[in-house]
């Protein structure tokens, strides 16, 4: 909320610099988030008085005035028509400065010298009114600096949800009084005398939702213009004047924090009932919106119609206007949860609802009426007032809390004297009684009865006033099981490794648009938002790679770059899990002076990266299978498995799914769920063979539909434990049906030197099985 320092100063004298006050507020839990001085740019403007007005000799629309600053008289040309002799006005002398860098100089206007300027509100920078000169009351002393009366500082405080008592100037004054140890002035009130009976009675049906309803009937009132003081103050709160009656209700809201509602009594049919709306009942609120209500909405109704959404907004049918003669003022308390429900349901942001949904002091209602009547009396006339009508079905005892000194010590780690504790609490308005055993009985004031209900709440109060910064540091001894999160550690190992391999780690938004995902052919479960910010981000992403494709698109401006990306992120494809995705784009190597035309990459570049990555994390037995996916190029894609478990896919993205026409080279992607890749436990040493390794090559011709994985599996099976490695060394296309393949096998035993005979035996078995099972034939 924003506060006016001038307003605050009506109720408390502040004798420290503003900055120091703001610091004290911030350090006690009311953070001052910003402030602005109102009249910083104004210099040398004083309160002046118009002595004489004559016609300008050379211009019909201009006037020529004698203006005094109390000492001297100045001749001033003025164009505004709203001035009269003896008016008190803001007078900018020669040399004065106004907002926007305006400097007042001696000048000639249509041949007549003008020694200064009479100012409008707008020229002074604190209003929009530029229709005429700003006419002041007689209370302003001629000759005084204008700033003495009108300077102000508007400061904003972040009021946390637990402190609704601070949502007014009086509330903040109370807090400042406690912080500075100073007394405060109470707002003046009018004691009510019953001079006319209220023709309107009030009945509360919804007692849970309306714990208290006070009201007063005022007859023979005159609505009118607000004084410039009231206008000024509500303007600091961002409101424009809407006539005296509405302005006073608004002023009171920001003054003491209680939203009252002014009804035109003559527009009320019969009596008032506080009840829930019937489903389908209609009303038009003062924002001119027609609303169809539900039975959860608390309303104020008369015998015929709904006249207000209780605590949220009044209706047009009972609004006060310039002809209002008789007034019915509602000064009620509504229960926060009901107000919130209605406010949220209709999306109404009103100052009243903001306060009721946080909690308003239930004891304030009669006081609020007396205050409003006082303000009305100061500003207009009326003929009679009724008694204060007051129903209080929700009266509750104020909380009483027992506070143990030892608990203050336990939580705040400070040994405060009992007197110090009671001093702090008393300064904040708590009534305190010392009991035996260092216990204190605390009675919570009504304006804190929403948030201070427990001992711990009082300990907080003591802590914030004493200052958490005065608490000594105590290094805790950290006990309990030391648990290592191996999965977290694995992810960081992966990040480090992949960045070393030239991959950039991205972090993209996990929300993505459903249409895009469906266009890619996604058929799995979708987790869609019911309240997305926009349709581009309306589901929880089931894949990471579409996001990497967009990152690629965003980085195409860097020409001749190889782009290698990876990202680890949560995904949702029926359940939430963590996945890793890779993207590879570009050439085998970067263009350089030795190689101006590097080869394009193919799928085996990414497969190689994956295999090295799998090796690093101890996953050497993953299986690739040729599989098709809707967004991958046929014959360039596959699934990756751990045994029977599907981990993810690898492949070349089909060009029609690339997000930019400027992508001119193939893009390779892979995506895998991460958790099955976690290898637990510590690696144990395997002895290194002391015996020679022997190489043998096999060249055989196979039909194209025989997969390398089948051939390798068969070789491996027949090669026994002594076969250490099988590497595909050459693929030569014999014709459109057959390929000649060369494999290099490495044999090595852990226990002996393998002699020629042993090797020949194994080779024989291998070749035999390839011939028999896969119809391979040796290449001559």
């Amino acid at each position, binding site marked *: 909320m924003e506060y006016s320092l001038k307003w605050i100063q009506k109720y408390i004298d502040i004798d420290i610099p503003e900055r120091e006050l703001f610091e004290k507020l*911030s*350090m*006690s*839990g009311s*953070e001052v988030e910003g402030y602005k001085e109102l009249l910083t740019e104004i210099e040398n403007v004083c309160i002046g008085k118009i002595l004489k007005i004559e016609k300008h000799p050379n211009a019909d629309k201009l006037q020529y005035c004698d203006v005094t600053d109390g000492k001297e008289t100045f001749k001033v040309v003025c164009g505004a028509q709203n001035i009269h002799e003896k008016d008190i006005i803001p007078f900018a002398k020669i040399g004065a400065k106004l907002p926007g860098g305006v400097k007042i100089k001696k000048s000639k206007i249509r041949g007549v010298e003008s020694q200064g300027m009479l100012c409008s509100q707008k020229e002074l920078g604190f209003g929009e009114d530029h229709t005429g000169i700003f006419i002041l009351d007689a209370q302003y002393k001629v000759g005084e600096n204008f700033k003495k009366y009108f300077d102000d500082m508007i400061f904003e405080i972040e009021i946390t*949800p637990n*402190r609704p008592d601070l949502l007014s100037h009086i509330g903040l004054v109370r807090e400042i009084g406690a912080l500075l140890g100073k007394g405060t002035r109470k707002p003046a009130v009018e004691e009510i005398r019953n001079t006319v009976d209220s023709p309107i009675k009030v009945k509360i049906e919804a007692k849970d939702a309306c714990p208290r309803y006070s009201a007063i009937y005022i007859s023979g009132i005159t609505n009118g213009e607000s004084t410039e003081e009231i206008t000024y103050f509500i303007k600091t709160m961002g409101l424009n004047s809407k006539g005296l009656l509405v302005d006073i209700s608004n002023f009171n809201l920001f003054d003491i924090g209680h939203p009252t509602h002014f009804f035109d009594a003559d527009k009320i049919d019969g009596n008032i009932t506080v009840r829930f709306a019937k489903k389908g009942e209609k009303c038009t609120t003062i924002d001119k919106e027609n609303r169809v209500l539900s039975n959860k909405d608390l309303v104020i109704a008369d015998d015929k119609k709904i006249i207000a959404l209780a605590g949220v907004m009044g209706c047009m049918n009972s609004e006060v206007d310039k002809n209002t003669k008789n007034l019915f003022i509602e000064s009620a308390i509504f229960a*926060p*949860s009901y107000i*919130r429900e209605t406010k949220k349901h209709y999306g109404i942001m009103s100052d009243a609802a903001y306060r009721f949904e946080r909690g308003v002091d239930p004891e304030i209602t009669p006081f609020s009426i007396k205050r409003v009547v006082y303000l009305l009396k100061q500003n207009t006339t009326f003929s009679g007032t009724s008694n204060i009508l007051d129903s209080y079905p929700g009266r509750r005892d104020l909380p009483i809390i027992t506070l143990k000194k030892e608990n203050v010590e*336990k*939580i*705040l*780690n400070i040994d405060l004297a009992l007197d110090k504790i009671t001093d702090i609490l008393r300064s904040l308005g708590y009534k305190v009684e010392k009991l035996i055993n260092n216990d204190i009985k605390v009675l919570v004031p009504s304006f804190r009865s929403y948030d201070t209900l427990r001992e*711990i709440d009082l300990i907080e109060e003591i*802590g914030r006033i004493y200052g*958490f910064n005065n608490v*000594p*540091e*105590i*290094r*805790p001894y*950290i*006990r*309990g*099981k*030391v648990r290592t*999160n191996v999965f977290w550690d694995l992810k*960081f190992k992966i990040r*480090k490794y992949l*960045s*070393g*391999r*030239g*991959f*950039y*780690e*991205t*972090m*993209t938004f*996990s*929300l993505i648009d459903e249409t895009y995902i469906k266009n890619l052919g996604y058929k799995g479960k979708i*987790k*869609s938002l*019911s*309240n*997305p*910010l926009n349709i581009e*981000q309306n589901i929880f992403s089931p894949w990471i790679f579409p996001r990497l494709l967009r990152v690629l698109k*965003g*980085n195409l401006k*860097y020409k001749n770059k*190889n*782009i*290698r990306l990876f990202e680890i992120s949560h995904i949702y494809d029926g359940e*939430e899990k963590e996945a890793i995705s890779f993207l590879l784009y570009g050439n085998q*190597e*970067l263009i*350089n002076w*030795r190689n101006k035309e590097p080869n394009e990459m193919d799928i085996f570049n990414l497969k190689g990266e994956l295999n090295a990555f799998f090796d690093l994390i101890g996953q050497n037995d993953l299986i690739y299978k040729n599989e098709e996916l809707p967004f991958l190029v046929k014959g360039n894609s596959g699934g990756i498995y751990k045994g029977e478990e599907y981990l993810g896919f690898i492949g070349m993205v089909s060009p029609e799914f690339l997000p930019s026409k400027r992508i001119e080279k193939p893009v390779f992607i892979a995506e895998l769920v991460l958790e099955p890749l976690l290898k637990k436990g510590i690696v144990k040493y395997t002895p290194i063979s002391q015996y020679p390794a022997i190489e043998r090559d096999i060249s055989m011709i196979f039909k194209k539909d025989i997969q390398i994985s089948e051939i390798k599996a068969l070789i491996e099976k027949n090669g026994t434990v002594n076969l250490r490695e099988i590497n595909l060394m050459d693929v030569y296309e014999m014709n459109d049906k057959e390929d000649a393949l060369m494999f290099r096998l490495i044999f090595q035993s852990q226990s002996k030197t393998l002699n020629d005979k042993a090797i020949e035996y194994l080779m024989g078995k291998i070749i035999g099985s390839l011939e028999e099972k896969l119809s391979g034939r040796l290449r001559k």
Partner: protein
Amino acid sequence: MDLNSIYNDALDDLKNIKNKGDLPLIKSKYIGRKGKVTELFKELTSLPKEERKDFGQKINEVQNKLKELFEEHEEKFRLNAFNIKLNDITRDAYPIESGRTHILNQTYEDIYNVFKSMGFTVVEGPEIEDEFHNFEALNFPKSHPARDTQDSFFFDDKSLLRTHTSPVQIRIMESWEPPFAVISPGKCYRRDTIDASHSFMFNQIEGFLVDEDIGVGHLKAILDIFVQKIFGEDVKFRLRPHFFPFTEPSMEIDIGCIFCGGKGCNVCKNTGWIEIMGAGIIDPNVFTLSGIDPEKHSGFAFGMGVERIAMLRQNINDMRLIYGNDLEFLKQFRG
């Protein structure tokens, strides 16, 4: 054949050698197991006794000389194979691209290391949460204005994207016995429009410690270590009272402005202080709701935005850069 002509033949062969691969052939032709020189040794037995010694010596000499020659040639071939050229070392290298871990993960790691060294365990939680863990158990009553500060994304089935990492507090308290000290990192989501300091997805690190008799002094000591390690030994910090539903008392932590040293500047809005996290003593209601006895146990919790820490430490003035994934940006942070 006599020794001299064999020797001369060998020299001729060596002279005419073209390939490195021919060398072993020539070598075995003369001094191999069946080489011409070796064969001569066999003839020794057929010679008269008095000549044997003399001739034997000669064959030996020739054999050794040839060995030397072959070795010389081998060495010559080996050195030739190096094919050493004159190079200008200032010429460009063949480029090798280095990659990067993401700036936020670098920040995560730095923060994690501070707490890991103190004995905290890292625990991650789901990003798709239920209302109980995200709000109710954290003492956000239904229809309470405190929920307004964390506008949430809901899914059709009423689950939601967690608005903070604090639900992990509840999940741990439900399943572990105190004492424990945990940090919990991860992505969170709030319905904020993206601007220089907001993003609907952001990263948080939560920390909490539960034991017996834990108070503000303990929290302060841990934060002191954190601030020193992450921002520097000379950086001051302060605890400013605040409100969070799940801690009581609650506070925000400010550090002395690292840009102006506390004199006042744009970044600290002339206050000399910069807010870096929220913290407090865990509210007894939170303990009760997750099955821990608040009479016996107490603890503290704190939470911070990882983007904010990164932005402050690395002088990043716009959060959109962090999620922009421009490689030129990512490249600057070497982690």
